[in-house]
Structure formats: C-alpha cells, structure tokens
C-alpha cells in the first residue's frame, strides 16, 4: 500500500528539512535583531512621539516601504552583491539568510511599530510623570506592554519566513523549497513534492501554535 513511498530518499528529505530549519532559525533571529530597533525607531520618531524627528521618520518609512514592495524573489536577486559581501557566497543556507533578513526585517519593523502604537498613551504619560527616561519608557513600559502584540508579530514573521525559505530554493538556497522544485517540478516526482509541502505545513502549524500559546500566556487584558 505504501509502495509509492518506497523510492523516496528520506535522508535527502531529512537533510533539506534541517537546512530549512537552519535558514528559518537564522533568518528569524537576525530579522528580530534588525527589525525590533527599526520598529522602535519608527514609533519613537513619529510626529507627536517622544523622539519626534519627522525627517528620520520619513526616511526610515520610505526605505521600509520600498523594501516591502519589492517582491521577495526579485529582492533576493537584487541583493546578491550585498549577500556576497556579508557572507562570502550567495548560495546555500548561508547565502539565503541575508536576503531573507532584508526581506523580512522591514515587514517585522512595521509590525513592531503597530503593536507599540497599541500601547495606551496614558501609561507612557504616567511613566513620564514618574521621571522615567526615554530609554526606561522603551524598556520598562512600551516593550512589556506591547509583548502580546510583539509575540504575535514574531509568529507572523516566522511563518512568512517559512514561505520565503521555500522560495529561496529557486536560486540555489537549498532546503525543502529547493527539493520540491527539483523533484516535484522538474522531475515530476509528485510524492516528494507532497511530502515537502506536508513538512512545511506542519512547521507552520507548530510555529502558529507556539505563538498563540505565548500570546495567551502574556495577555493581561
């Protein structure tokens, strides 16, 4: 009954799953590291906010929008020189992480900005009235108060990155997306394609579940 599974090269699938997980982990991590400060800066420099800087806000905002409007597959190719400069190659797991981060960080930054804007202005004002510095307001008020929204944002970003990693297979990034294209698309080996899709589905499901749990755990309203 399971004959059609017999020819599948499981070690190949396992290796590519690991590659995808590495790409996903690495790119999510760097997306957070890069996107969180940009998101905070977007929020803080906005008109009427604590660090009001219309010019800085405008420049950041335009850069973020430009990066977000370029389709990921094009962006990947466009940033090849940057990738080579950063990690020495534009291929393999290492070569995909920079384009993934450049594609996802602006997206995540906007999500950060949006969740910070959800924080009650009154609470920020209360902290100011107690003599909190701007840094303390970010660290002690904005980030903890926005925590559920930020976690939801991280979840959405990670799920989006699962899709991006699959796409990066197209330009030689490896991983499950690469596998799906090579076997499923070029060689008409549908089984492998279905298996990779199922693995990606499970991955997304797990990420979403963990994210939802954490959001619920940290929600106090």
């Amino acid at each position, binding site marked *: 009954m399971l004959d059609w599974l017999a020819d599948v090269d499981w070690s190949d699938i396992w290796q590519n799953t690991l590659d995808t997980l590495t790409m996903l982990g690495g790119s999510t991590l760097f997306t957070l590291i890069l996107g969180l400060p940009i998101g905070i800066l977007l929020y803080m420099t906005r008109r009427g906010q604590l660090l009001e800087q219309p010019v800085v806000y405008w420049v950041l905002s335009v850069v973020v929008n430009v990066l977000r409007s370029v389709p990921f597959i094009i962006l990947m190719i466009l940033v090849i020189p940057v990738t080579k400069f950063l990690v020495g190659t534009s291929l393999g797991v290492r070569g995909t992480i920079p384009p993934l981060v450049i594609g996802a960080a602006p997206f995540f930054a906007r999500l950060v900005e949006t969740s910070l804007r959800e924080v009650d202005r009154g*609470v920020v004002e*209360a*902290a100011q009235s107690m003599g909190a510095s701007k840094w303390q307001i970010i660290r002690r008020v904005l980030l903890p108060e926005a925590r559920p929204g930020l976690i939801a944002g991280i979840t959405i970003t990670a799920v989006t990155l699962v899709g991006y990693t699959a796409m990066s297979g197209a330009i030689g990034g490896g991983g499950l997306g690469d596998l799906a294209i090579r076997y499923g698309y070029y060689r008409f080996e549908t089984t492998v394609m279905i298996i990779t899709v199922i693995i990606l589905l499970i991955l997304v499901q797990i990420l979403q579940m963990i994210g939802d749990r954490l959001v619920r755990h940290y929600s*106090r309203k």
Partner: protein
Amino acid sequence: MIKLSGIRKDYQAGRGTITALDTLNLEVGRGEIFGVIGHSGAGKSTLIRTINLLERPTDGTVHIDGIELTALNGRRLQQERSNIGMIFQHFNLLSSATVAENIAFPLSLSKAPRAEIERRVRELVGLVGLEGQENKYPAQLSGGQKQRVGIARALATNPKVLLCDEATSALDPQTTKSILSLLLEINRELGITIVLITHEMAVIRSICDRVAVLDGGRIVESGAVADVFLKPQHPTTREFVAQTEDAADARLIDTDDSKPRDRTRIRVTFVGEQTYEPVLYETMRDTGVPFIILQGTVSRLKETPYGQLVLELKGSGEETERAVLALRNRGLDVEVMDHA
C-alpha cells in the same frame, strides 16, 4: 509650594494657534488641597500637566518648592518629577505588571535597593487598603481598586505634591467618596500638597481648601471654597454651584410674578458653629417678623458645616430692615435679593 507665573500655552492647530492657557497665575500653599474646576476644554488638563511639565508652557515659569522646573531639562527634570506624584482619570497602570510591580515601578526606575522597594510596597499596600491583592493584575481589579494602586504608585517616592487629573471622574459615586476620603487622609497624615482638577463641584466641596474656576484658559474666580461656593460671582462659577442644587428649587425662587408687595426675599448664609445655634429663630422671635423658607441647604464644605436659606420676610420695609440688621448683628451673612 507651587507657583505658576504668567503661564501661557499655545497649540498649533492647522494654520491657526489655539491658546489653551492665557497668562495664568496660580499659587498653592504647602499642605493645601487645591481644586481647579472647569468645563471640558477650559484648559484644566493642560494646567495640571504644566505643573510637572508634561506640557511645557509656551511662556511663563513653574516653581515647585522653590525650584524653577521650567529652567530644568533632561535628567534634572526627571529627578525633580519624582517629587511630584500624579494620578489619572483612567488610572494608567501597567497592564502587564501586578499590583505590587506597579507600585514598585517608580522606585525601580530610580534603582532603589530591592529590600527597600519590598518594604515600601508593603507599607503602601497597607496605606491604600489593598492587602491581599498584591499579585493581581489591573484587569482583575475594580475601578476603585485601580485608583488605589494609582495612588500608592504616585506616593511611592514620597513626593511633596500629588496631582490628581480627574481622578474620580471614571468612578461611581460610592467609590468616588472612598477615593476622596483616602486623598484627604493622605493629605492629613503625610502633609502632602494636593492639586486636583475636576468638573464636579461635589469633589471640590468635599475635600478642597481652595478652588480656582477655569474658563477659556483663564482663572475667572478663586479663593477659599466656602467663599466661592456660597458667593459665586462669575457666571461659570454659578453654573457649577447650581449643579449641586435642586433645579426645581431654583425655579421656585426665580419666578417673581406671584410675590406679594409686602414681602422681601433675603439669602442668609451661615458657616461653622452658627449652624448649630438657633440664631434664626431667636432673631425672628425678637423682631417679630414672620418668614417663609423658600429654599434651604444645610450641609458641609469639607469639614465645615454651613447653611444657606432663602427666606421671604413678611412686613413693611422698616420691619424687614430691622430683621436683616439683627441677623447681621448675630454674624450671619444676609443678602437682600429684592425689595418690595
């Protein structure tokens, strides 16, 4: 303790400017409970935020305890703000922190040692009566309890001044009462100076020593609560005073048509110990002028009993004049509202 001089605050609104506060001067003494009353849009919020410079005035100076806040910036201003506690209409608690963590917040901002924070939090929880609620989150508390957390948090750094921004406006009357008596208790026991803004005359009446009436960004009337409340001069003040009276009663004395010619209406005001003396009865007995009570209030302003009656005296001009004089001689304040 607090001195605002020549405060002016302009906002840019589109092409024009809106003046929220207009060359405003205000002085609040140490240990006083000072109320500012006004309609929404009168500039109350801007005024109270000017005191701790959450709103920097366009012009004018703010002194707190001899220090000119308007001359300070950055770090120094942040330090000075820990001498000024503030509570808010919507409490503004950290929803992600427990009651104890909220109260500890201002102390941890100034990096106080952990043991000291714990001791102080215990003390404050006791002061505001929230024992047993320390580990709850704000969402699990009632409005009154949230404001108690707000008060405890505002007091954590032992401030000299407490600013109350419509602190009871979101609370029901019963809870309002309990929060006001807590504020009064804090004022007495800690000697802290309190400035509150409100649109409710009842709040002013129950705890304030002095009051200022704000209208269109200016103080139109100010003074001891008893003076302003019992003898309101400005139309806005009268409006606020009327809030606390029965509208039907006011109509009763306003219609002049049915009044017989031999009657004179007077308003008698007495404050303090006089409230408990049979002054009115004795005077009227001695002068022999019969009277009707058209309207009357006997109540308290903060802790001071007072009464205000509108009487109609029956008799000739001469007789009623004698009665008025006799009442005045007993120390009552008498205003002749009209002559027959």
